[in-house]
């Protein structure tokens, strides 16, 4: 029926879960998160789902809608063909706690490995908007972890021990490119975050709801800086194929 939305939502834990179908009334402008909230209110009060701002600013409600990584609060229901069931699953890269909620604590551990901002001694704190622009792009990140979710190195190869993921390469870049910063994080970027494992397929850039040019503006410049000190075969190949850099 056109005035209804049918959702198939993951219910259960990592060990035992299944897809359960729900129908809720369709509202103008409805987003997937609204539909999930309607399911909670009408059918399943205990359906677990994270959310906060409901305006694409906090990055809490990440999930996979019809298999695509999305912020549920910014994903319009009317984008999907009427009458077709919409599937909503938790992010695949992280262990499921319950229903749509995953354990993302690993990300917070990676963040701790990155040395904090260290201002130059005696700085007058003056820098231009143009200098600011470069890192403000990275600082738009809302930590939705969709880039981590979609990254092959983490999603398909489970290399969480060796690779920090796009989110934290972006964070490292925001510090490395800060005009007042005086630290050197390249060894951390190479060893701890494993920048060399990124094979620049740009999947992270494609899913970023903040439209950060993760690969081009953060990861490749970091790879270049690292390669100035160490040899990186992927970057060598990239240069060979594209003639760039």
């Amino acid at each position, binding site marked *: 029926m056109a005035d209804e939305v049918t959702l198939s939502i993951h219910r259960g834990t990592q060990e035992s879960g299944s897809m359960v179908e729900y129908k809720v009334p369709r509202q103008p*402008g409805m987003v997937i998160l609204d539909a999930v909230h309607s399911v909670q209110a009408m059918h399943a009060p205990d359906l*677990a789902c994270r959310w*906060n701002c409901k305006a694409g600013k906090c990055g*809490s409600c990440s999930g996979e809608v019809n298999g695509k990584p999305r912020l549920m609060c910014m994903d319009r229901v009317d984008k999907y063909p009427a009458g077709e069931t919409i599937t909503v699953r938790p992010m695949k890269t992280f262990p499921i706690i319950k229903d749509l909620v995953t354990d993302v604590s690993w990300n*917070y551990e990676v963040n701790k490995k990155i040395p904090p901002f260290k201002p130059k001694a005696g700085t007058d704190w003056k820098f231009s908007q143009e200098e*600011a622009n470069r890192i403000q792009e990275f*600082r738009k990140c809302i930590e939705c972890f969709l880039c981590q979710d979609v990254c092959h190195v983490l999603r398909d190869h489970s290399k969480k021990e060796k690779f920090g993921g796009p989110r934290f390469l972006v964070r490292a870049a925001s510090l490395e490119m800060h005009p007042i*910063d005086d630290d050197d994080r390249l060894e951390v970027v190479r060893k701890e975050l494993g920048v060399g494992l990124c094979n620049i397929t740009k999947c992270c850039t494609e899913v970023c709801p903040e439209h950060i040019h993760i690969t081009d503006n953060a990861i490749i410049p970091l790879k270049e800086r690292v390669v100035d000190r160490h040899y990186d075969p992927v970057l060598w190949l990239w240069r060979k194929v594209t003639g760039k850099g």
Partner: protein
Amino acid sequence: MNKYEQHEYDVMVVGAGGAGLRAAIEASAHGAKTALVCKSLLGKAHTVMAEGGVAAALASADARDSWQVHFRDTMRGGNFLNQWRMAQLHAQEAPDRVRELQEWGAVFDRTKDGGILQRNFGGHTYPRLAHVGDRTGLEMIRTLQDKGIHQGIDVFMECTIRSLLKDGDRVAGGFGYWRETGRFVLFNAKAVVLATGGIGRCWEISSNSWEYTADGHAMAMWAGADLVDMEFIQFHPTGMVWPPSVRGTLITEGVRGEGGVLKNKDGERFMFRNIPEMFRGDYAETEEEADRWVASVIANERPDARRPPELLKRDVVARAIRREVIAGRGSPHGGVFLDIASKRTPEEIVRKLPGMYHQFKELADVDITKDPMEVGPTCHYMMGGVRVNPETQESTVPGLFAAGEVSGGMHGANRLGGNSLSDLLVFGKRAGEFAAKHAKGMDSFPSINQGEVESFAREALGPFDPAEGENPYTIHEDLRTMMQRRVGIVRSEDDLRFALEELGRLRERAGRVKSGGNIQYNPGWHLALDLWNMIDISEAVTRAALTRTESRGGHTREDFPETDKEWGKRNLVIRKPGDEIIVAEEPLAPMPEDLQALVNKAD
């Protein structure tokens, strides 16, 4: 040995928005073993949604600014009901707190000579809001978060504190549960800082997230602390009104700060006829003058015109919008029009207001570089809260501190935009510092009363008991609809009395709530428990609103439309000593003459 997981800390901070993070950083810097306990993941608290900026008299965009002018603006904004010492400390210390954020890595937008750029905002005499486009709150929370994780603070994410524990008169810690497992957890702490934010989930149309369920306000009241100014709720003038999915979602005041204008359906800029007596002479009186002001702001020059009346303080603008809608001059979906497209180029709009641009494009199918937005008031901020010592942020309960939105006094009857982020920093720091000092002054941990813990545990499991019972979402929805209608922007004795009766019925229904499911990550159960906070605090608001028989700031009485000088000498204090919530009138603290002279200037 212990039945429940238990932790010992010098300082426990509840809430990890701007105030909680800043308090935890400071407590930890003073050598206190510090726990930061938050309901959501770190970095997702309400601060992240703040858009426009942080107010501080840095005087980098206009050299005439000073703490004295900021103080005066804040007091006028609050209709002089503010705790003057808090307003003074806030104005004096905000610039250092903002510079400190920069030193911790925050990247504010820049002036031409490379300093911190400041933008105009409602009620602020000079451009005063340091900002990052329209995502200042994100910049602030991320900066504090990244500072905090290297500071040795223990963070307890997705852990909800339900009740404060007491040892005699003083605070002894908190009782709560892990959202993931539903297991109970006890914190034994020498000092507790509440930084739990606001109460906006009690209203239907609200810019607030699920977290804003009045936890801190209720826990403090239950623990015997005084609340103050509870009748003053800020309805932000510009929330989205269409489609229903985004009704109430915030549109930053920065849109008006960047030149946006409000129009009714006849295309009239109605704010010109809505300038209150107190502000007459301070605002442009013709469109030509207002346009000249915008032109100078765009050109980065000192304006020779007065500012547009769209930049009046929030309570004034919200009421004016409501009047237009009621008079039948509203937009198709019951708001008015906010137009920036005719004032700035598309490139400027996308650069200065990227969040607003995407929000409207993706959620409302409106291109704000071409068409006006439809806007209307949305419940946004609680001025009232825990009554604190202005220097230390300690409540009337020894060892219990409060900072940010959960505390009261700083903003009086109405908060100026931008004064919230600065409030979080200034008083978050103070609360952390004095909580750490309080803890240092104690030789041993306060003792925990196991009987009290057991009664909290029983109470918390209540919603699993009934075989038959009501859905928590239904009760919550009914509460929100009722508060919106009866205790909204404009109130009357009849409505408020009706609300009190209704709250009694809702309390009974909440006693029969059934959450369903099990204790693991169960939002139905969490909401069932939150109903108690929301119903009690809604009653506190309603009783205060009934007592104050005048209109002032965020409290408007249809039956008492005038501002009354006598009421301007008194705050209302709320207490719950037994089963009843009671209201007491207390005189304002007398203001020193030099500050009084600042406030009186040119009035």
